[in-house]
């Protein structure tokens, strides 16, 4: 299986690559549109600013090939900012258009709580998805973000709560997303990645 790991210079690409390798899966860094052409699965890791991710995708002319691949059914996993990029836009950088795979806007979590939402939290599962196979609501996942998909739309599989409920896990057919960092979430995180690999195979 050829797994394309979108590499636009974000900090956690190497961590995701290491986590996949621990599961016996080799990924290749995708930096050019041609790197996506033959991919059986695509992972978009991401940390940092929404603008930096969108700008990088546009500068490298990856937006078109990426949305085409997603829409044509290639299994896709967006991690953290990679989940947020699936929406139409983000309050973090309203002037940049997201990939618009899903309707809606990413917003800042309320300032009534400490931000960033940083550390280990649990999720509440609202519907079944293979991505959460063999995982339970007592498992903790590592989050590190200030913005989130707070409009809970039909693709939501599980939510988390930090000042407000937000999308922690989503799935719509071949499109998967997690707001937490599976590559940094111990055994439960590794299980999420393993589930994605199995679903993509």
């Amino acid at each position: 299986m050829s797994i394309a790991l979108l590499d636009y210079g974000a900090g956690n690409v190497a961590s995701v690559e290491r986590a996949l390798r621990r599961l016996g899966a080799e990924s290749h860094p995708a930096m050019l549109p041609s790197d996506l052409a033959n991919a059986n699965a695509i992972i978009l890791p991401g940390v940092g600013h929404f603008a930096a991710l969108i700008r990088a995708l546009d500068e490298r002319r990856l937006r078109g090939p990426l949305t085409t691949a997603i829409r044509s059914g290639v299994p896709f996993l967006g991690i953290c900012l990679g989940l947020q990029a699936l929406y139409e836009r983000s309050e973090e950088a309203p002037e940049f258009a997201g990939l618009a795979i899903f309707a809606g806007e990413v917003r800042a979590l309320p300032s009534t709580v400490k931000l960033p939402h940083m550390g280990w939290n649990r999720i509440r599962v609202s519907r079944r998805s293979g991505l959460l196979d063999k995982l339970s609501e007592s498992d903790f996942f590592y989050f590190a973000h200030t913005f989130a998909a707070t409009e809970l739309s039909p693709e939501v599989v599980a939510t988390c709560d930090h000042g407000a409920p937000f999308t922690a896990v989503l799935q719509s057919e071949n499109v998967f997303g997690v707001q937490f960092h599976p590559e940094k979430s111990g055994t439960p995180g590794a299980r999420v990645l393993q589930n994605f690999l199995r679903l993509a195979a």
Partner: protein
Amino acid sequence: MSLARRVIPCLDTEGGRVVKGVNFVGLRDAGSPTQLAERYNAEGADELVVLDIAASRDERPTFLETICNVAERLAIPLTAGGGIRSLEDAQAVVRAGADKITVNSAAVVHPELLAELANEFGSQAVVLAIDAKREHRAAPDPLGGHWDVLIRGGHQSAHLDAIEWARKGVEMGAGEILVTSVDRDGTQSGFDVELTSAIARAVSVPVIASGGAKTPQHFAEIFDVGGADAALAASIFHDGVQPIGKLKEYLARQGIEVRLRC
């Protein structure tokens, strides 16, 4: 459902080895960074901090190699720091495998470094470390204590108020404050509750308490009374005096939310 309080072991490294110090002086060898990292990953540490305490230019490649080897063995977040003076230094550390960068003295000298790092990696990756020492003033202070910021490994006063500096650091882009009590560090007499809670009340970001931990009660106290989001310690974990798994079970029994399944 709420965010778990974090327990964070810290590896002070020099020349590729973990060393430990008491009040920042008197170093002793405490083992291999990779072996300790593996152990803490398995024991349920919520995060790991690796510091280059020599922070000299010549030692830099060794430190980057240490980060890389440690990152290879971790399925939890890794924070690295010590001697980060520029965006380029931070990029090297992130490329080696760190998820977050901690800056201390360099941010005091050039606070705009915090903004540069936040722009590049996001605030969630920028940890401002503050070494604070209580200032004894003649007149009683209705607002509580005053703490001076120390730099250069605790050797020099920055002539800054720690609370003010924490606030400014967050404004500049820090996403987390790691506050070390220089008075308590190495004493094993407990975290500085007053200092930590003063910082936690002053800023909107998570606060990591450091310096002085020994017993499980010290951890419970800093979470419950001190308002810390995370607590950091070094030698008590390295020596096995305080196994992390047992510590977290104790905290859970006290009704403190911690991550037990890892």
